[in-house]
């Protein structure tokens, strides 16, 4: 039996470097059977993969348990979880998004069997490991391909997000999301819509707001300070000056990288990834600067929808994205009302000068 201090473990980390993410034995096994559909593929190395970190409450529906935690405290919450260990959770708002990521992976593996440029979904939760077995049972029940997780037992997830080179972090807790954004990690607070409209199982659709999501909030600042007319003037005058980047630009970038891999194999028309810009800007005026900015970054967006201030809900209901990012709660709520899984990116001027929605919803206090 060996015990050691953490130092010994770090030293013998060399053998992990040798093995990499595919142990030699498994390579040999894979070599013998050219197509083994039942063989589980190995997760890619974090530095090669596009890592999507999700918290337990967005991946699964834990509303009942959350209520127990809020009303009866931690001990009762843990007791309940352990007592229901064999009972899988129902899917949460991020579930269909994760399934769509897996569908993209399947298609990428077919076209590029040697590549590690794949989505890697990691469960990063504040939950105690006591809830671990129930979470693992649920992952197995729903046949999700999630092999990596961190159950931090109450500690901040930020360090672990960085350790996994996280490209996108989704959580139900706005405090953690805010912290992650502060550390330069693309993050958004995910809400559960009352009803969730059906989404595609084969094509991943991601919708983004423009200002303060893909782009910086510089123009939004002008709008808030000086009103719509000044905003239009400013945007027209600076049409050819690219906007600064926003917190989710990087995520759009990695999606674009994967899209190009499909294009290279002739799958442009039916690409398994589709991106949308859903912005309050108008096509006639302020929209041009947005498109030119994207072009200057070398990024493509499949569909740009300029709503000129109209509500986003109905448009999103037509698009049926798996996920929609916006910096304004007004739009997030509007989208959720019509069944879209919408996430709030708490970035920029809109957080300090919010626009009041029809329902003045308070974001709930959470610990997870």
């Amino acid at each position, binding site marked *: *039996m*060996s*015990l*050691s*201090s*953490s*130092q*010994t*473990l*770090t030293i*013998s*980390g060399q*053998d*992990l*470097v040798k*093995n*990499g*993410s595919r*142990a030699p*034995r498994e390579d040999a096994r894979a070599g013998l059977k050219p197509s083994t559909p039942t063989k*589980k593929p*190995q*997760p890619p*190395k*974090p530095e090669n993969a596009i890592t999507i970190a999700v918290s337990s409450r967005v991946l699964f529906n834990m509303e009942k348990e959350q209520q127990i935690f809020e009303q009866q405290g*931690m*001990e009762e919450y*843990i007791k309940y979880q352990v007592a229901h260990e064999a009972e899988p959770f129902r899917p949460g708002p991020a579930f269909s998004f994760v399934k769509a990521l897996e569908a993209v992976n399947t298609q990428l593996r077919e076209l590029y069997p040697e590549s590690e440029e794949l989505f890697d979904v990691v469960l990063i939760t504040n939950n*105690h*490991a*006591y809830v*671990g*077995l129930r979470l*693992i*049972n649920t*992952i*197995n029940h729903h046949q999700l391909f*999630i*092999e*990596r*997780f*961190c*159950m*931090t*037992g*109450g*500690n901040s997830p930020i*360090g*672990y997000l*960085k*350790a*996994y080179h996280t490209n996108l972090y989704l959580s139900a807790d706005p405090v953690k999301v805010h912290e992650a954004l502060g550390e330069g990690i693309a993050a958004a607070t995910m809400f559960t819509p009352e009803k969730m409209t059906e989404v595609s199982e084969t094509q991943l659709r991601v919708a983004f707001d423009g200002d303060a999501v893909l782009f910086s909030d510089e123009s939004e600042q002008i709008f808030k300070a000086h009103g719509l007319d000044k905003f239009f003037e400013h945007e027209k005058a600076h049409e050819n000056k690219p906007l600064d980047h926003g917190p989710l630009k990087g995520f759009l970038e990695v999606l674009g990288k994967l899209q190009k891999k499909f294009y290279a194999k002739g799958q442009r028309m039916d690409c398994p990834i589709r991106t949308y810009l859903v912005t309050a800007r108008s096509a006639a005026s302020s929209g041009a600067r947005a498109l030119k900015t994207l072009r200057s970054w070398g990024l493509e967006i499949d569909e740009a929808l300029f709503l000129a201030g109209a509500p986003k809900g109905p448009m999103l209901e037509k698009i049926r994205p798996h996920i929609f990012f916006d910096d304004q709660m007004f739009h997030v709520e509007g989208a959720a009302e019509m069944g879209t899984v919408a996430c709030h990116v708490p970035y920029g001027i809109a957080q300090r000068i919010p626009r009041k929605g029809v329902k003045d919803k308070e974001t709930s206090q959470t610990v997870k």
Partner: protein
Amino acid sequence: MVSTVQNSDVRQKDVDHAVVVAVTSRALFESDTEEDGDGAYAAGVAFPLLQALQRVNEQLLQRNPAESLLFDVVLMTTDSQQQQSSRFMSSTRHHGLEVTRFCFSSEEDFIESLLKNNIQLFLTTDENEVLQATQKGVPSVLLDEHSAVCSSEQLRVLFCENAIIRPSSDPTPASRQAAQSFSSQLGKMRQKFGMFDSPLCFTLVTLRGGKDSCCGALKALRSIGVSVDEAYCLAGAPRSPILSLLRPHFLLSDGFSNLDD
């Protein structure tokens, strides 16, 4: 030759129920340097660990003044440092360390001393001593400068699969049994604290296997009375970024079978 001196400053523990931890004088003190004035040695790499053990004891006694499941810490000194023995004793007192006994032995006899004192965890900075003690079935930890930067407020124990750690020392049935019963003792201690603010924290890390081997490890630990607080399944991801965040005081590997291998 093996001899023991009790530390009259510290209340002796009930050795039948306590978890006896031995630390070498080289690990506990920097015997090359002197603290200013009173000739006491400066703190060595084992200090934070010892302070964390002490804190667990404090909290256990707070909850139950008659608690007997406590850490019983003894200081082990071999031959070559015998002339410094009185300095070790006075340094222990100077730092207010909760060391109940001082055990002196020759280098050849130190294993005998470990066994005689029923040591359940042996802390040293000497790799040879670790190998020898492990072979005789005494769970041993090699401390180093990383140990010096661990928390002194919370004892953090890491459970990890044994496949990677020093393959040269294969666990004997005796040592596996000893480590398991040590883990169970720790598990019992942990149960006396709640979810928050526990001075004792257990973490499970599975390095290579996926969620199913982590699941197996959680169940295996549960079967020996250990409920972990944190769990990390790396599934082949690089370990050092994660480990540097976890900062465990020591690792226990309980021979979790890696189902995927």
